[in-house]
Every structure is written in structure tokens, then in C-alpha cells.
């Protein structure tokens, strides 16, 4: 795959995920938990493509999300950049092709992502920040982990690696 084509695929995936996040995620909410498709995609992409592309996916995806919301610009980008990088670092360390590891990574990544966001909001002194709830974070992490079952195999088809994803 040429560099230009890979960049195009990358941009299209980020935009499609963005549209899914702003258009569909709200409809998929269970109780007050709305899935973070962008985060799931960033982690999955990082697991396929490594730290650089994981970082870039997290940055652009997070930034675009921030731009289209009324939250503090840059906080989402910051959290997803960090998570994207560390998820990419795991690429070389996870040899299993089972979807279990991505699910676990997404679960832990979601918890970390929310903690980073809350920490950042606290540092910048956001007045109307939502009340901190471990229950919601755990619910979101679980929801995102389940969503990985769909997102991971789909992104695997567009990633540069020539691997078929095994389910469990």
C-alpha cells in the first residue's frame, strides 16, 4: 500500500469514526453510558499500526471530537494521544492474535483515558465538569471493550498488517 493511499485510508477511517461518534453513539447509550467509538478505534488502530500511527490517530481523532463539542479544546486530543501511544507500544509485546487482548487493552485504556480527562479538567479548573463516577467509568470501559469485538476485526482489514484477526 503506497504512503498516499495509507494516509487516505487513515483520514477516511478517522472521519467515518468521527461521524459514527457524533451521529450514532448517542443512540447506543445504555443508561447514561455512551460508547467512545473514537477511543476504541484509536486503541485498535494503535495495536495494528504501532505507537506513531496510534498517537496520530488519537491526536486527530481526539482533536476533531473536541472541535465538534463544547468541551475544553485539546483535553480529548491529549488523552487520546497518550492512550494511542501506549496502546501502540503494546503492539510488539502482544503476540496473541486473539481479540481478548485488544478488549483488555481497550478496557484499561478507557479507564486511563477518563482519569486523564478528569485530571486535565481539574487542572484547568473547568467549572461545569460532570461528577466523577467510578461506576460510569467502569460501565464505559466494559461497553467499549465489548465494542472492540466489532471495531477490531473491521479495522484489521484496513490496517497495514497482513493478519487475520482471530476471535478468542
Amino acid at each position, binding site marked *: 500500500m503506497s504512503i498516499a493511499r495509507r494516509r487516505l485510508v487513515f483520514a477516511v477511517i478517522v472521519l467515518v469514526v468521527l461521524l*459514527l461518534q457524533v451521529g*450514532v453513539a448517542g*443512540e447506543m447509550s445504555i443508561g447514561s453510558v455512551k460508547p467512545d467509538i473514537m477511543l476504541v478505534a484509536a486503541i485498535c488502530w494503535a495495536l495494528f499500526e504501532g505507537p506513531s500511527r496510534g498517537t*496520530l490517530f488519537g491526536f486527530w481523532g481526539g482533536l476533531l471530537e*473536541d472541535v465538534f463539542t463544547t468541551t*475544553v479544546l*485539546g483535553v480529548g*486530543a*491529549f488523552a487520546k*494521544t497518550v492512550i494511542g501511544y501506549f496502546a501502540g507500544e503494546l503492539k510488539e509485546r502482544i503476540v496473541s492474535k486473539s481479540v481478548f487482548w485488544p478488549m483488555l487493552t481497550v478496557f484499561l485504556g478507557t479507564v486511563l483515558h477518563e482519569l486523564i480527562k478528569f485530571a486535565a479538567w481539574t487542572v484547568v479548573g473547568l467549572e461545569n465538569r460532570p461528577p466523577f463516577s467510578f461506576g460510569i467509568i467502569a460501565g464505559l470501559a466494559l461497553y467499549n471493550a465489548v465494542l472492540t469485538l466489532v471495531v477490531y476485526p473491521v479495522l484489521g482489514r484496513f490496517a497495514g498488517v497482513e493478519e487475520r484477526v482471530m476471535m478468542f
Partner: protein
Amino acid sequence: MLERRNRRQRYLMVTLVIVCVLLVTVYSRESDNGLFHRMQRFFMDVISPLQKGVSKVLSPVRNGVGFLVDLGRARGERDRLREEVKNLEERIHELEEIRRENDALRRMIAVKEEYPELEFLVVDVIGTNPDVWEQTIIIDAGYSDGLREYMAVLSEDGSLVGRIILCTSQSSVVQLITDDSSAVGAKLQRNAEIGVLRGEGGGKVHLELLNLDADVKTGDVVVTSGMGGTCPAGIPIGVITEIGEKQADLSVGIIIEPRANLTRLDKVMVVVSPPPTTVPGVAEGGKNL
């Protein structure tokens, strides 16, 4: 080579993190009309038609997802509501039963106040006689509760129902005034013309007045005469609904509609005091008076 790549990756991450931190810092320091705030609003304006379009395009997907999610919720909600409806229906039945019982007790209290000289025992009706030829009911009290044969039985509104014809230790059989074998001393409330009330077996009773030329009209109220010693005087029985032609034996067929609803008796009142003074005699045709 690998080390260089790793370093480059770290630089990239650190650079982007710094960009993010700068963005956050500038954004949180500037006013609502600052560059980034305006940019955010601008992008939201730009994206909103696109978002609308996407929303429209994705609406079948969204609806599908929403439908599936709602389906799960709806099932849970349906089960919950079914359970709630069931509980509420049970509660309504309970309250309805309590209300009916309350009304009945109020009426019984009124009857007791109306007849201060009488003493009543309120008992439940526990069954009816399965024999089609007998108009009797079974009540939940007997000898052990102080009941005796020939005691008068009234409905909850104080109308005559019948009298006890059989007493066991725990239950008693009450012969209704509509029973074929029933005969009760009665009189017209308006002019005190006396007679005998006899059951016809089909939900009605007829009155045989002693005075064949008595002044009698439909709508006249018939009460017990107190004769015979089994039933206190003045207990309402019913109203005259039909007056027939004079028969060959000069008797007149006077049909009475009983005031008590004899087919729907839940509780009845037995007159325990004063007790029956005489055992009814045998009337013409072998019927008790």
C-alpha cells in the same frame, strides 16, 4: 535503527502532547470570544449541516440500533409494568372487597341502631344448598356461637332473609323466604292487614291476606307481623309488585318482591335476642308458620 525509530515515535508523542497542552492552556485562558472558542463555534456551525445530513443518512442504522436497544428496554419495561398491573389489580380487588365489607358493616350498624331492642350476630355466608329445589344458604356459625333453630336472619340492610332451620355446632342452614316450604307471618305496613308470606321457589314470594277485602295496592311495603314467635315484628320483607284477580276460593294472588338481594349474600345478621319464643306450628299444606 530501531532505537532511532523509537526515539522518533516518542518525539512525535511528546510534540503532540505539548500541542495539546498548549491548546488546553490557551483555550482555558482565553475569553468566550477568543480565537479557539470562536473556532470551535465556527466548526460546530460548519459541521451541523453535515451532522444533520449524516444523522439523516444514518437514521436507519440509528433507528435499528435504537430499536434493538429499546427492544431490550421495552421487554424489561413490559415485564415490570405487567407485574405492576397485576399488583395493582390485586390491590384494587382487595380495596374493593374492603369497601364492600365496610359498606355492609355500616349498613349493619344502622340496622342495629334502628332496632335497639334486638341483639344480632353478624355471620358470613359460606355456601348455598346445591339442591335446585331448596332455597337455603349455609352460614358460618352454629350452636357453639349461640345460634338456635328458628332464629330470624336478616340481610345487611335489615331486610328479612329467612330463618335457621338446622343448626350444627359450627354452621347453620338458613331457609330463605323464597323457599317453597317457607311461611312467615307478615302485614302491610300501611294499614296493618295481616297475612302469611309464602315462598314460591323462584325468587318471589306471595302474600295471603286474612282479610280478602283488604285495601291493598302495588308498592305497599310488607313487614313481619311478629306472629308465630320466630321473627320480631316490623322487619321489612319487600314490596307488592303485582296484585292478581280474585280466585275461586276468594284469595288474591299478591306477589312480593323481596327487599333483600337473596342471590348475593356475603354476610347476614342473625337475631339472637330475643330468642324464638315458640316453635312454628304446621300450617295448611304442611308448611311452617
